[in-house]
C-alpha cells in the first residue's frame, strides 16, 4: 500500500457518516413522494412504552412492550403491510396528544383515523363492534360474537380480540368473560385492570 492509498483510506475513515438532519429530511421527502407506506415510533405511556405505526390511511398498529418487541414489530409490519417503513417520530403528534389526554382521563373517545387492513372477515366485524363499546362500559366475548353475527363463535371472538392490532384505541380491554372475570389481555392483565379503573368501569 502506498501513500495515496493510505491517504484515501484515512480520508474515508475521517468522513463522517450521514448527518442526522439528512435522515429526517429523507423521511419528509419520502412522505412528499407518497413513498412512506408505514411510519412508526415509540411513545411513553403510563402503561409503559408502546410502539405505534400509521399508514397513509391512518393508525394501523399499536403494540405493548416496545423495548422487547421493537424489531419484531417493524419486521411484522414490513412483511404484512409494506417494506417501505421508516421511523418517523414527528408524524405522531396527534396520536401522542390523544393518548396523553386519554391517560389523563380527559378523553373518552379517540378521533384518530384508523387503517383496518391488519384485520379481516369475522375478526374485523368483532373489532368494529368492539370499537363502539362506550368509555366506562364493558361487554363480553359472547356479546361480541353475537353482534358480529355468530352466537356460537365465542372462542373465535376471543381470538380476534386477542389479535387486536389496535389495542387502547379499539378498546378490547372493555370485553370481559361472561360472569365478570377479566380475561386475557395483550398488554398483560394488570394493564387491562389499570385501563378499566381509569375509565371507572371497575
Amino acid at each position, binding site marked *: 500500500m502506498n501513500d495515496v492509498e493510505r491517504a484515501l483510506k*484515512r*480520508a474515508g475513515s475521517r468522513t463522517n457518516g450521514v448527518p442526522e438532519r439528512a435522515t429526517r429530511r429523507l423521511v419528509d421527502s419520502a412522505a412528499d413522494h407518497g413513498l412512506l407506506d408505514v411510519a412508526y415510533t415509540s411513545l411513553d405511556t403510563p402503561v409503559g412504552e408502546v410502539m405505534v405505526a400509521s399508514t397513509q390511511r391512518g393508525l394501523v398498529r399499536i403494540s405493548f412492550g416496545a423495548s422487547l418487541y421493537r424489531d419484531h414489530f417493524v*419486521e411484522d*409490519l414490513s412483511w404484512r403491510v409494506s417494506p417501505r417503513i421508516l421511523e418517523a417520530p414527528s408524524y405522531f403528534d396527534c396520536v401522542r396528544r390523544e393518548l396523553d389526554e386519554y391517560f389523563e382521563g380527559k378523553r373518552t373517545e379517540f378521533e384518530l383515523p384508523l387503517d383496518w387492513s391488519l384485520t379481516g372477515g369475522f375478526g374485523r366485524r368483532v373489532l368494529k363492534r368492539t370499537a363502539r363499546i362506550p368509555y366506562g362500559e364493558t361487554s363480553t366475548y359472547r356479546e361480541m360474537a353475537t353482534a358480529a353475527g355468530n352466537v356460537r363463535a365465542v372462542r373465535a371472538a376471543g381470538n380476534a380480540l386477542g389479535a387486536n392490532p389496535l389495542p387502547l384505541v379499539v378498546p378490547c380491554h372493555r370485553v370481559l368473560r361472561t360472569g365478570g372475570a377479566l380475561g386475557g389481555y395483550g398488554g398483560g392483565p394488570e394493564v387491562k385492570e389499570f385501563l378499566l379503573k381509569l375509565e371507572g368501569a371497575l
Partner: protein
Amino acid sequence: MSVAIPPFQVFLQEHRDHVYRFLVASVGPQEAEDCFQETLISALRAYPRLRANSNLRGWVLTIAQRKAIDAGRSNSRRPTPLADPPERGVEANDAELDAELWTAVRELPPKQRAAVALRFINDLEHQEIGKVIGCSEQAARRNVHEGLETLREVWKQ
C-alpha cells in the same frame, strides 16, 4: 416462510453511511447530501420489487453511482461553488488535506472515480466494484489502478 427483504428502516441504518461516504468522495461534501436524498428516494421507490436475496449494498451503491454521474453532468454547467471554510484547530490540516484529495478524486473520469471510492472508501472487492459500475472484475481492477496512478501524480505535487 420465504426470507423477506429487510424493512427499509433496517436497510437504511445498515447502508446509509456507506452511501454517504461514497458520495462525499464522488461529488464532494456540498453535493453529497442532495445526491444522498435522490439515491435513497430512488431506492425506496424500487424497494418493494427487490428480490429477497439481493445484494443490497451493491444495489444501493449502483444507484448512488448513477446519481453521482448525473450530479457531475449538471454541475459542469454551473460555476464551481466556493469551498467550505476550513475547520478550526488541529483538524484543519487534516480537513484541508482530505478536501484536496477529494477534489483530485472528483477530477478522475467517472468510472475511475467510482472505482477508487468503492475500493478505498467502501472496502469493496474488485468483483463487486465491477458489478456496481457495470464492468468486469478485470476492468474494475484496471479502473482502480489507473485512478490511483493519476492521483499519485497529483499527490506528489
